[in-house]
């Protein structure tokens, strides 16, 4: 258990040793800040036109799902760039041996890398939450709604990370891992638009279908379980893939 945090600490250190993490943090803040400011503007424009009380909606419901929805799309491109190195690069520079020779299990290695990346993702999500909560000075916020959005974004990013780590374990080339992860994730997000009828299982597979309820402020155990299963599946697949390295050589 302790080893997971040792590995996670190493991953974080490596992440911040390269400009990548800083650039991603800065760009995310800039981009999401612009969208947030834009959302606030549009809120005033729309609400000034909405005279009847039933047309009016709260600030949180209007702005926050929009900004967090954009954040999902931004993370869709950012997370594959962060996960691509995790295993592919270690394989390329032959440092995986270092982890394999240490008295840690493959599960600890994979989980350590996942935890390290999720710590970074948590920082990203918390910065965004802080941005939304800053509106407290001007209006009454529905804090719980902000938090379900944050949870949704966090779970989405965790799902992206788990899949990205798995893709990274398949190859030696980080770039290939990034491209495959991006395409696979994009596919999983838009898969529900291929569903012919509303009962189609494709709907159930779609990541977006499980993010939307959270984004609307509805916390359902079915959606949470979907994310947990999704993450666990890809982390277990990664462990299996690394074990195959040891068996096949």
């Amino acid at each position, binding site marked *: 258990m302790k*080893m997971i945090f040792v*590995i996670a600490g190493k991953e974080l250190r*490596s992440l911040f*040793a390269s400009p990548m993490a800083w650039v991603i943090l800065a760009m995310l803040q800039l981009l999401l800040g612009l969208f947030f400011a834009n959302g606030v503007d549009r809120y005033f424009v729309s609400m000034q036109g909405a005279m009847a009380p039933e047309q009016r909606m709260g600030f949180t419901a209007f702005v926050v799902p929009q900004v967090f929805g954009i954040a999902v799309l931004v993370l869709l491109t950012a997370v594959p760039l962060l996960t691509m190195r995790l295993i592919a690069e270690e394989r390329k520079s032959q440092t995986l041996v*270092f982890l394999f020779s*240490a*008295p840690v299990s493959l599960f600890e290695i994979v989980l350590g890398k996942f935890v390290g990346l999720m710590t970074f993702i948590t920082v990203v999500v918390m910065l965004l939450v802080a941005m939304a909560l800053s509106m407290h000075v001007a209006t009454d916020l529905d804090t719980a709604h902000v938090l379900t959005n944050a949870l949704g974004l966090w779970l989405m990013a965790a799902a992206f990370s788990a899949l990205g780590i798995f893709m990274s374990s398949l190859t030696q080339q980080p770039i290939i891992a990034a491209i495959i992860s991006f395409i696979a994730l994009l596919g999983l997000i838009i898969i529900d638009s291929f569903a012919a009828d509303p009962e189609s299982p494709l709907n159930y597979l779609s990541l977006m279908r499980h993010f939307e309820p959270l984004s609307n402020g509805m916390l359902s155990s079915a959606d949470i379980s979907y994310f947990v299963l999704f993450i666990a599946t890809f982390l277990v697949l990664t462990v299996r893939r690394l074990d195959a390295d*040891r068996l096949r*050589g």
Partner: protein
Amino acid sequence: MDTVTVEVRDLTRTYGNNAVVRDVNFNLNKGEVLGFLGPNGAGKSTTMKMLTGNLAPTAGTVRICGIDILENPRDAKALIGYLPETPPLYKELTVDEMLALAARMHGVSRGHVARAVAQTKERTGLLEMGGRLCENLSTGYQQRVGIAQAIIHNPMVVVLDEPTRGLDPIQIRDIRALIKELGGEHSVILSTHILPEVEMVCDHVQIIHQGQLVFSGAIDDLRASRKSSSLIVALRRPPGVDVLQALDGVAAAEITADRIRLRLLESGATDSVAEGVVRAAVANDWGLYHVAPDATSLEDVFLHLTQLEETA
């Protein structure tokens, strides 16, 4: 006191139908240095990978201090320090960070990490390099950091895959001294294709060829098999071949451009024959200016052993 630290039984690894390592057996005791010798592609690195749990053997067992590495990898790996062919260094970390990470990963408790790092840096001559990024180190220093990360947790067994590769002669001398020193308290397995290295640092040697052990024994046994069987002599005014062949202990004489090779009746009897040659040369005024045993180099022994296998 004999305590077995490494026990290898019938270790085999096949890729498809190609057996890279076949039925390798050996034991290693505490405090011994074992040299693993073989030409490129003989299966040295594959064996090392299996010893350290990086590769699953097709058949056979590896026990480290009695712990099976397949059944209980975590406990077994804690007792091993491994330097693979390419030193596994995270380029973005400094030497201090890298070594601290290695220590933590191998279960050195947080309070002891700093001391372990300092001690290991001193042993491997890295004291001035602590703040440098691994990326910016020369090959030789990277190799030292590689060795340092393998010994930082004071493992029972140190496995070094070609530890002196890429080092300059002074560094090679230092590292060999370090390996000898390690042999005092740990067991060391090192692979190499440099014979003098084995002769200098190892107690035991194993020669592996095409995946099989062709020689296994103490270093003295290997030395014994390189006993010289001829004497090289140079004379200003050489007599005829028949005169030389008539000398005591000489079986045959061959005259080449400027040297005469005297084949001995009995290998290893170079001293007494040399004495006789010198006496005869002085008495007959042959103008002797060179006499030396024709040392069969270890290379010859090695070639002999590995080629024996091919003709068999």
